[in-house]
């Protein structure tokens, strides 16, 4: 394998890895605080992408991004408030099944609104084209997305660890009852967190539209990988999700370059080995 190929694979890995980290962070927030495996996370990623392109037509690229985040966050909040909330007292398995049902509904809704055909989307002219990095030529937009997503992920980490909201969040993850007893409106925290987590997924989808294009099943495609990231990283651990996201993205990308047929399976092998070797995940506590 020559250096150009290796460089390209590493860069691809980082782009994918950042996306996975973003998805993992969102999922981890929801899973960690609410103990909910959100099976709708994938379709919300897809929804973000679709709202993005419609929004971009009306308001330009940035407008599309904002529309995507807003739309998905609102839907996420709605899901929590109207659906998930009713099931807290029941077994968490049911919340998983609820989210699964919602993912079906939303995927079909996407097809109804935007059609079943795949759509490609071009980045804004400012970010289009390729950059000669010496060792390899790489699309400009991907570099921008990689840097931006890294910043975003870092921002999430800082919010969760350094801000008051983050402290409340972490308190809630540790011990809901005590946090509620301390006067925190835990219900509102839940809704906000769900909205934030899903909003991140929507943003991820929106950012990736020029990279991966759109397809109604894009959510179903990415969901397993998001879960691998969260499980590998450690349920409820944000730094774990970030680390695992990068790891999974890189492994998948390198495998594509070395032995493409094994790329996807290798991710799950990685997860299985990870859980067997270190059951609490890379950086998980419980």
């Amino acid at each position: 394998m020559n250096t150009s190929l290796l460089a390209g694979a590493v860069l691809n890995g980082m782009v994918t890895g950042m996306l996975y980290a973003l998805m993992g962070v969102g999922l981890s927030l929801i899973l960690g605080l609410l103990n909910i495996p959100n099976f709708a996370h994938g379709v919300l990623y897809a929804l973000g992408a679709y709202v993005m392109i419609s929004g971009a037509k009306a308001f330009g690229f940035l407008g599309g991004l904002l529309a995507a985040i807003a739309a998905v966050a609102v839907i996420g909040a709605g899901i929590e408030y109207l659906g998930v909330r009713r099931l807290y007292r029941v077994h968490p398995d049911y919340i998983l099944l609820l989210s699964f049902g919602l993912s079906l509904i939303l995927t079909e809704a996407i097809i109804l609104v935007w059609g079943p055909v795949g759509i490609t989307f071009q980045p804004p002219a400012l970010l289009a084209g390729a950059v000669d990095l010496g060792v390899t030529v790489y699309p400009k937009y991907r570099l921008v997305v990689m840097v931006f997503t890294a910043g975003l992920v870092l921002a999430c980490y800082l919010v969760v660890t350094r801000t008051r909201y983050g402290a409340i969040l972490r308190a809630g993850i540790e011990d809901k009852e005590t946090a509620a007893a301390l006067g925190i409106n835990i219900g509102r925290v839940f809704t906000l967190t769900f909205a934030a987590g899903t909003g991140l997924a929507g943003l991820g989808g929106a950012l990736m539209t020029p990279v991966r294009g759109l397809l109604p099943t894009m959510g179903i495609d990415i969901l397993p990988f998001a879960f691998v990231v969260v499980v590998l990283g450690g349920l409820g651990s944000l730094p774990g999700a970030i680390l695992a996201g990068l790891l999974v993205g890189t492994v998948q990308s390198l495998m594509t370059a070395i032995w493409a047929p094994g790329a996807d399976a290798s991710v799950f092998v990685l997860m299985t080995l990870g859980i067997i070797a270190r059951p609490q995940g890379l950086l998980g506590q419980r």
Partner: protein
Amino acid sequence: MAEEDAGFASGVRACGGLGAFEAPSRSMKSAFPRLVLLLAAIVALPLAVRPVVASEIWIFAIAGMALNLIFGYTGMLSFGQATFFGLAAYTAGLMMIHWQAPLLVVLAAGTLVGALAAALIGYVCIQRVGTYFIMLTFGFNQMFFFIAYKWTVVTGGDDGLPGIPRPPLALGPLAIRLDSSLRYYIFVAAVFLLAFCVMKRIVDSPLGVIFQSIRENPVRAAAVGYDVKRYKWIAFTIAGAFTGFAGVLYSMMFGIVPLESISWIISGDIVFMVLIGGIGNLYGPLLGAAAFKWLSEAISVVWERWPLILGVALVLVVLFLRGGLVEAFTRLRDAAGGPRARREPGASVPVGIAAETEAGS
């Protein structure tokens, strides 16, 4: 013998009595009318829907019963049953294509493959509970899916494994051909009944009670002296065997093992069927499979967006009718009056909901 009884009895007592369970002796009496209904359904089904759809219903009913055993009765939600379904289907398919293996041999082989795979995978998965368990079953499913996808030499990849014959049923000197869809249906229905009876025995046995006690409260079950992990593993393995059996039947349905057989879409479908039918109830998966298959075919012919209706149904069931169709029927029957003022144990208390009431302890 006496010691065993005492242990069992004390275990059952410790698990809060038989209130919510299907007690063996009582279920014998109440079982009879329901069994008659089942036989009637088997006879009537191919007249109501095409034999092709009817056969699929019973095949997935078997897979649903298997999931019900681990989810409804033992409390473990597996999102990867397609692993065993698909592995058995591919095994059977390959045996029939390359070795012209006879029918009973492939059925046995598939069941064995399902059991073996479940034993191995289950051993890893049951080390964890809750979300981790679900993700592990899911992860293994994905792994095998991608292997099946890529190992095209063996599995045919995305195209599936075509050219699978339907070997005749050889009973001694007789060789009954199963070519027509109606004949195959009769065969599938017959083996389904067999599987149903076996499952009923398991569920009614002390083993079944232990499974339910694990779902109700694993800590208590362990405190009483049951090796919870070992029983979970047994349940998982049994479920794998049943699912494998169903997979073999599926491989002969269309003469091809499609890649979906091992995809998590089918894992999800099986979960839906059990949930919509009514978990924890022996007949739930049957209702669920029937409703799911019939509706999916009837609706998708007219409107491609059938999954939307499925999603809505699932959401409604999860929010408002967690006992599924079984609960719906029970409620209707109770609402219509009738002599059963007192709720019959087992049949009408959806085991899933029982978890709620136990939440306090």
